[in-house]
């Protein structure tokens, strides 16, 4: 899945938007599901897709996995442009 396709998926878009707006955040699938108002298991799969695309970083521990936003400034700018296109307001 490439970035353009991700923006067509509502759940991926919601997650990216959440992390773009809260770049200091590290959260579990359950936490993220709460913030974006989606089902945890769907969110979990989408989070892994985003990790594969290096948009998110996974901090894996035995008890849970925390996800945080990329630190790649080029990628962040690219996402910023996509988000503006998606929601110009």
């Amino acid at each position, binding site marked *: 899945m490439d970035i353009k396709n991700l923006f067509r998926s509502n759940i991926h878009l919601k997650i990216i938007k959440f992390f773009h707006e*809260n*770049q*200091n*955040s*590290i*959260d*579990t699938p359950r*936490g993220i599901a709460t*913030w974006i108002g989606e089902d945890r298991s769907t969110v979990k799969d989408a989070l892994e897709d985003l990790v594969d695309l290096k948009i998110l*970083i996974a*901090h894996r*521990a*035995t*008890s*849970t996995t*925390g996800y*945080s936003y990329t*630190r790649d*400034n080029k990628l962040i700018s690219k996402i910023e442009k996509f988000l503006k296109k998606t929601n110009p307001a």
Partner: protein
Amino acid sequence: MIEETKDNTYQKELFDRLKKSVSLKKEEECFGCFIKPAFWWLIDKPNPKFSEVESAMSASCPYLKKGSGGERKGCVKSLFEVIRKCSRDKKLVRFECEANLHGFVYPIVQGDTLYGFMGTCYTKKDVSPQILDIFSAFTDTIVREVQKELELSKLYETIRPRAIALSTVHTVHRLISSTLDLNELLPRIARLSLQILRASRCSIKLIDSKRKILLPKATVDLRQKKARLKKVKVGRWAPGKAVKFGRPIRGHDYLATPLIDEDVIGVITLYDKIDKKPFTSFDQEIMTTLAEQAVIAIKNAQLYKEQEKLTMGSIKSLAKVLDTRAPGAYVPRASFLKITLSIGQEMKMDSNDLKSLEYAAILHDAGEVLIPYEVLTKPTKLTGEEYRMVKEHPMAGVEIVKHMKALKTATPIILYHHENYDGSGYPKGLKKDQIPLGARIMALVSAFEAMITKRAYRVMMTIDEAIDEVKKNAGTQFDPEVTEIFLKVLKRKEIRVMLEKELYGH
């Protein structure tokens, strides 16, 4: 001044919402039926200037659009006076304009605060007081509704980032509490700190026993592959000062936060935010909370390490006591311990299982202490009774170690380390996967050890002869998978050198 700015922002947002309010539009349409051909306007200031009233009106008022300069000025002036009266009384004011048309101005207030005005003009007939009463009640309800929406949204904007930050702190707590290994914990804390503060470098230093030097324990530098590890004297540079004064030290491109338990135990220092912005007081607040979580996790890991050292010390002491009976038999050579643990690592055993394997490697033959010395050292074939005694040593070993709680997980390895892969071993005759993995590893390494070290009952083999013997017995005495890994481990140069040095002294 700040209050004024806050009020201005609130006022602007309130009017933005009012302009977009569907209820207000419906109200205008509804009342427009009674008072047409009126037009409506909003003024988003409690004390508008003459020019502001003129510009609000001239956009919509047909009279102003087509009137002469004098007429325009007169009309706006009369309306300006009406607005001032409405501002003073904070009540709806009816008026008749220069063109003999009617209208009214309604103040938008909350408590004692006036935010602006709503009004209508260009009505041919004066509007009845009854209609105005209904209008006032309706408008009041709509304004309140919009104000409530605005307050809720403000509350959401204030609480949500804090709730998200709190959730981040909670997640970090879970992530750092899930390990008791300091070597894993400290880099993890550093990486998480970097991520939360969007910084480029993080260094964790812990204070030495004399409390004079900060020793670098973990450094993550995202700009350089090789992290710099520098000692720092307490009191020097930002990390040293943070430790000395027991409070965070913040500069444009650094933030040093002390790790405080009962006393300061170290410091987490972050450098260079990736957006090049300075570290803020909010960053400092977040790092202080994170440092509080980190210090608990670090103390727990340090205590666990101490506990492990104590356990290992007790095990080694026990092995030493047993070794006095047959020197060299119970204190394992470092090379055999290394081979055993390397096989465990290659077979992806987790850290707890590896620890059990290490304990068992030291004490697997502890039960031999109950076998008479003459039997242990007998160079000829054992009698039936003697062999029965030998076969009982795994159970005896378990009896010896069972009182040590830390060795509970090592007992199956001790009990079954003489089981053979094909079921021909003792004490239970277990086969294949019925034998715990640790015991299968131990069976092979202890047999290999017996082949290449001096024993009364067998001729000492060379390393290569013993390797051939192991290969021959793969699938019968030994687990073929473990054998394969064992052969791989023995091919490592450092293992072979270590083994030869211990056995032959070169």
